[in-house]
């Protein structure tokens, strides 16, 4: 199982702040996105959206998600 977190407006796109995804094994980001509705997947990789795996910012290039990972999608911040 991997946990996907949707911050900010991405929560509305996803319809929930988080989603659990069963993974067969280490899965590239593209494989994770394929499991989601196309419109949501597009919003998650839109310009300005950052990603954090297990609380650490990561580049989407070459990103692989494994069982037990938490992947957060962070849209542009609106500031404090």
């Amino acid at each position, binding site marked *: 199982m991997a946990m996907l*977190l949707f*911050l*900010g*407006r991405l929560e509305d796109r996803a319809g929930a702040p988080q989603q659990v995804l069963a993974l067969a094994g280490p899965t590239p980001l593209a494989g994770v996105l394929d499991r989601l509705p196309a419109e949501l997947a597009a919003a998650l990789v839109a310009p300005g959206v950052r990603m954090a795996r297990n609380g650490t910012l990561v580049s989407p290039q070459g990103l692989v998600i494994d069982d037990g990972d938490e992947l*957060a999608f962070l*849209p542009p*911040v*609106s*500031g*404090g």
Partner: protein
Amino acid sequence: MADVRLELAPFDSGAALAAFGAAHPQAGGIVSFLGQVRLEGEVEALELRHFAPLTLPGMEALAATAEARWLLAGLLVIHRSGLMHPGDPIVLVAAAARHRRDAFAAAEFIMDHLKSDSWFWKRELAAGQWRWIEPRAEDHADIARW
């Protein structure tokens, strides 16, 4: 060492500022900024969301940058997350220094960066509808000058 806090419940900005002043008697000046939820049109509530692994560490790194750049006797940064209403404090920044210019500059530096590149997402409730607030171009212009 800066005092940096992420508060999930309303905080007493006056008490926090008084305690900060008492803790830094050697500072000749304290500059503070209090941001509060604006009473505006039909806005009934404001909600800030944060991402625990990044938000407070980011605020601490920002405070450390300010402490390295200006000669400060003390630095206080308190930021709310969660549900707020008009008049509620959102952010309190206070910089204590021997000389006032360092305190003014550090407080403004912290505020400009909190407003533009800290890990918060904001939405407001108006006429029964929640609406996410998108980044503003002015906020990015504000940090370009540092």
